């Protein structure tokens, strides 16, 4: 873990934004401005310009408490959006769910991939079970997650149950051909390839946080670019609520709770309250389940596995990954993280960590 220090080691965001160079950065800035001016959540009034010029979205004034806190210690939304680009030509490893699944198979439990619906191509069966359901319905029962192959793509995400060559889900039942036709239409409509893989079942620890959906352990992995040593920069539990409906972001009503990187102890969870202010919870606000001071089971093993991912994947500079915790305590890969960094920084600004700040600086983020 990175050594902590109280020295301010942040980034002069205003100057950074002023000096952006290159087509990629300019495009990213255009996208940021679009999002910024289209957003109306937590309007910051006269503080708009302050945030805009520093690359923070409007909701961050309240979330990060800029009345009291120093923006230089926080990774901006503009920077966060570009983190994966720091991996250069290897960005695909963290973009393509299938490639990531293959890459991490030796370090954690990865969902079994059953089929792929390629862009403008037929569905191809990649597991014997899938092929068996298609041919004579003899495959074992499956709970399959269907989602776009590429992380961040805005397509359908659905779970179907498959038994005896028939599926149930999407509000209907039918044979495998019907499922194939439906996903072909999805694929054509959104110009997206789709992946069919096992839907991993979270273990009792994760279910205990909130039983209504899949909770996540989101991690940010970086490395010290001088020594090339891996660093776990943050680990955060994303916990569902009745309002979040499976979309685990603070803005959607989800909760985030920090995990102490050394001990695995869970801190108080944060969420956005009715008054659009940050609220802290020691217990789940709906179920009353204890959150604060829980200890993530098998944390040392989890930590070692995360370290090993970065240690052995020396081509990666930064990785943001989502996991679930299985019944046996092992990490189960959900995929590339769609983590909104506010869920991390609402607890602790990322750039206060000198190693992380230095890494970001070296990656010119």
């Amino acid at each position, binding site marked *: 873990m990175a050594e902590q220090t109280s020295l301010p080691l942040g980034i002069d965001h205003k100057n950074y934004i002023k000096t952006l160079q290159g087509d990629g950065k300019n495009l990213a800035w255009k996208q940021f401005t679009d999002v910024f001016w289209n957003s109306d959540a937590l309007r910051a009034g006269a503080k708009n310009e302050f945030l805009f010029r520093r690359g923070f979205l409007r909701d961050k004034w309240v979330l990060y408490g800029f009345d009291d806190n120093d923006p230089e210690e926080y990774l901006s939304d503009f920077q966060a959006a570009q983190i994966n680009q720091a991996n250069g*030509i*290897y*960005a*695909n*490893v963290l973009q*393509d769910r*299938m*490639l990531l699944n*293959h*890459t*991490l*198979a*030796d370090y954690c439990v990865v969902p079994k991939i059953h089929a*792929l619906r*390629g862009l*403008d*191509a*037929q569905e*191809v069966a*990649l597991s014997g079970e899938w092929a068996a359901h298609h041919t004579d319905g003899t495959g074992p029962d499956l709970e399959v997650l269907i989602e776009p192959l590429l992380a961040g793509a805005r397509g359908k995400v659905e779970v179907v149950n498959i038994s005896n060559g028939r599926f149930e889900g999407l509000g209907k039942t039918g044979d495998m051909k019907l499922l194939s036709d439906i996903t072909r239409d999805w694929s054509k409509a959104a110009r997206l390839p789709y992946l069919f893989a096992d839907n991993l079942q979270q273990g009792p620890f994760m279910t205990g946080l909130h039983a209504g959906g899949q909770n996540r352990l989101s991690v940010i992995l970086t490395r010290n670019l001088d*020594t*090339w040593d891996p660093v776990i920069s943050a680990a955060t539990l994303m916990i569902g609520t009745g309002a979040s409906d499976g979309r685990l972001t603070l803005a959607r009503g989800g909760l985030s709770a920090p995990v102490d990187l050394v001990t695995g102890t869970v801190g108080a969870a944060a969420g956005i309250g009715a008054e659009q202010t940050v609220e802290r919870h020691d217990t789940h606000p709906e179920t009353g389940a204890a959150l604060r001071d829980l200890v993530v089971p098998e944390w040392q093993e989890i930590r070692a596995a995360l370290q090993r991912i970065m*240690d*052995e*994947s*020396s*081509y990666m500079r930064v990785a943001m990954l989502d996991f679930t915790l299985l019944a046996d305590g092992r990490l189960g890969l959900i995929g590339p993280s769609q983590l909104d960094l506010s869920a991390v920084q609402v607890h602790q600004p990322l750039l206060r960590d000198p190693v992380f700040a230095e890494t970001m600086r070296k990656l010119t983020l």
Partner: protein
Amino acid sequence: MTAGHDHLHDGHHEALMQSIQDPVTLKHLARFMTDFAKDPANITDEDASWLYAQGFLPEKIELYDFEKYDPSLFLSDVQRWMTREVNGDYSIVFNNKILFTQTFRNFCKVAPITAIWRNGRITPYDDVWEKCTTGQLTEPRKFVAKPLGGGGGGGVYFIEVGARKAVVESNEPGRERFVLPVQDLIKVFDGARVPFMLTEFIYQGAFTKALYPLTVNTVRMLVVRDPDTLLPHVVRTVQRMGTSSSYPIDNFSLGGLSAEIDIETGVLGPGVAAAGPYTGKLWDHHPNTGEPIAGQVIPNWQDIVARMKNLFLQVPYISYCGFDLILMDDDVVVLEGNSFSQVRLFQMHRPLLPDPAYVKVLKHHGIYQEPTFSEDENEHRAEGHHAGVAGTGAGARS
């Protein structure tokens, strides 16, 4: 031999050369042009003009049988460079050996990584490095060290580690053979400017060992993916063999041999060489060992092909690959994949384009250009074909 020829268009090579406009392909064309200029083959002015217009390097006059086969049936050098774009950003899976190992070990046997050396530091991947350098090995073990991004066989070290000493052999001039105490094993990488990967040496099976025992003799298998069905198609396979010229590796560019393997039966054809002392002849027997080549049958061949097809099926992000395989007695090890495999080691036996499934992939990726002709030209060409010159056409040499 012109099976499947009907789908090809005479003059497609020139049409492709003239159609190139996007910067990526123009860059490949520039690469072809610089390669063309430095090709030492002595050719006539007429041949030079023809080859240049078609996109073939001068060496191909000697290497390819343009008399026996219609030149339009050969994949040109420009096309071969363009195959580099087929896998797009996913070429990283082959270009980075760590990523290659992480991905492919899920579906096949690969050479396990022992350690990575980078900037003077070793990152061990298991406890083998520790055992080697502390003299804890109970029996000698052999390793291969290669540049992490490496290719083409350069800078390869073969390291045999015993209880006290390590014997190192390499193809680096001045470092052909040296001995180190095991605790100094890291010194193998002294002076290296790029990261190195240390993997366990794979012992080849009896069949390929017999061909030429001093090198690991690998199979190169070209596999492509049908763009509609996403299913694999094995285009061509050859058995490579080291020679005294290519030692200590079986590199074809350094004088090794290539013998075509019949994809259906696993029967080897004669060996050919593209460089070194064994060029210009078909070798039914290995020139150094006298071991028979032509007619030999690779054991368990159909099983190997089936395994490779299944492997390729599992990695749909890859559409084009020349795999290098080490055949063991009861298994096959995938040594590496090449995103834009050389093709001369295939086409020296016979051209690639008679395979319609292969051409379909090329067309899908814009590597095959159908020529457009004016009405006059069409008329002229039709007359030519009626007159019995079909099969030569605009692309053929007069």
